[in-house]
């Protein structure tokens, strides 16, 4: 589960972690002091942690400040995260930060630029780097390729890991009218090191599914999740960790843990045929 601010005090008081791991955004902890930061560090130094960044703007052009990179490196070392991930998107341009995951033009130039930037960041980090596929609502400019080919090209050229967000594939498939299973076919599942699963919301006015992370995961997403898990297992030879994302309308911890257990059961069921190998 994602380590959320409203749950910090309660989780910090626990004797041990109630989940296999916590995912945390370095941006939410780095450079902060005070009671909330102390609670966060109590958890991060007690429990297994996976780092997931929000604002390195991997397809953007704004340079990274040395201080930001140094802080990130220190955070990754301190938390002993097995890897660090970012989104396949841009968040800032001309120095102005939007704090939103914005779509990358599906062009050859954007592939090369993003892959170069991933390599440059990877060279600075003390842990392997993953890119996450995002939900997108509009093409930015005239596309030279499909999202499928764009994602494939970037992962290949950057030679990095893939954080497969199954909800984002579902959201895009509904918003843009394609078969999510066909989309997954032909993508480099051997690069998957982690997955995300989340709830979303329906925007009646725009007739659009928004990747809001503000509701429970719906059954069709769980079905897609269970369909892809064995494929990822076969491609990677292991059961990859999956994060339940919840960033808005955050319910009490107990409620979220109930949903996490439901997803854990779906995960175990999907990987049951590989039980011997997993053991």
């Amino acid at each position, binding site marked *: 589960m994602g380590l959320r601010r409203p749950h910090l005090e309660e989780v910090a008081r626990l004797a041990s972690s109630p989940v296999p791991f916590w995912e945390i955004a370095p*941006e*939410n902890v*780095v*450079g*902060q*002091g*005070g*009671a*909330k*930061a*102390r609670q966060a560090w109590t958890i991060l130094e007690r429990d297994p942690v996976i780092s997931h960044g*929000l*604002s*390195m*703007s991997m*397809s*953007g*052009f704004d340079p990274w400040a040395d201080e*930001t990179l140094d802080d990130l490196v220190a955070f990754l070392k301190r938390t002993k995260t097995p890897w660090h991930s970012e989104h396949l998107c*841009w*968040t*800032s*341009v*001309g*120095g*102005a*930060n*939007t*704090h*939103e995951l*914005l*779509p*990358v*033009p599906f*062009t*050859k*130039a*954007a592939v*090369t*630029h993003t892959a170069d930037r991933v390599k440059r960041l990877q060279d600075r980090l003390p842990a392997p780097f993953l890119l996450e596929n995002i939900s997108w*609502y*509009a*093409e*930015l*400019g*005239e*596309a030279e390729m499909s999202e499928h080919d764009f994602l494939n090209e970037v992962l290949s050229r950057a030679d990095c890991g893939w954080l497969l967000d199954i909800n984002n594939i579902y959201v895009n498939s509904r918003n843009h009218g394609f078969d999510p299973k066909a989309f997954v076919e032909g993508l480099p599942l051997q690069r998957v090191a982690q997955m995300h699963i989340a709830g979303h919301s329906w*925007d009646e006015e*725009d007739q*659009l599914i*928004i990747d809001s992370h503000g509701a429970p995961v719906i059954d069709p997403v769980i079905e897609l999740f269970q369909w892809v898990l064995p494929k990822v297992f076969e491609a990677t030879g292991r059961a990859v960790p999956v994060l339940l994302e919840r960033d808005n309308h955050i319910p009490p911890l107990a409620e979220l843990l109930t949903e996490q257990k439901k997803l854990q059961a779906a995960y175990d069921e999907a990987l049951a045929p590989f039980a011997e190998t997993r053991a």
Partner: protein
Amino acid sequence: MNLERVEKLQAVLADIALDTDVSAFRQDPIAFAAARGLEPGDARALLRWQRRLLTYRALVRFALSDPLPDCFPITKALLGEAWENCVDAFLDARAIQSPYYRHIHPHFVEWLADTGWGNEQWPCLLSLAHFEYLELEVLRAPEDEVQPDLVHAPASGRGVRFSASARNLAYPWRVQEATEETPAPAEGTALLFCHRLPDGRYHQRELGGASSAFLTRLMDDAPMGEAAEAVELDWDEATAFLEELRSEGAILGYT
């Protein structure tokens, strides 16, 4: 490789998201794109995806403005209907530059200070917004590093090491008395000293002129005796005050 095209497209989406007035894009995306030097194919894409690009406008504006009312409720009450105009102008200025989401609040205060937005109509605006952000700033200030070389007895020739959370402020308005019901503070000096208590809570006290000036000098690294003498503060009174601050965690020790 046409990187310039990619960056130009990103800048155009930022314009759609952040500009206060996007009527040109709503009315004629092709002309909007041409005015920004986009290629014809990209201009047609802007037209094709016009509605969804405006969805991004809503998402970005929500992401950037959502944290403001919780931090600045009295400022919002002071501005009334003009609050939305203020937020629009803030977003339009591209003043949010940090990769850290929590920096939206200080960027807002810095932007008010840099531009003087609304100052003519609401001369207390900047002071009030600054004061409203103060509590958050203090609560999130970096932890103090352990400094074993500090001593714990005040002496005339020694300096004072303050906590990173300590703030000694002078406002020309009685900002601490403003409320959402009565958001316009009265004119009058407010000398405030704020810091984080050892248990993490925010603490604020109003000071007299001599005490405030004394702390100002100490924060400028003046020795205690010299600082007390300069503001005509009795030595025993000065050391008792400093020890009280030390017991509350505002002072780490003496150098």
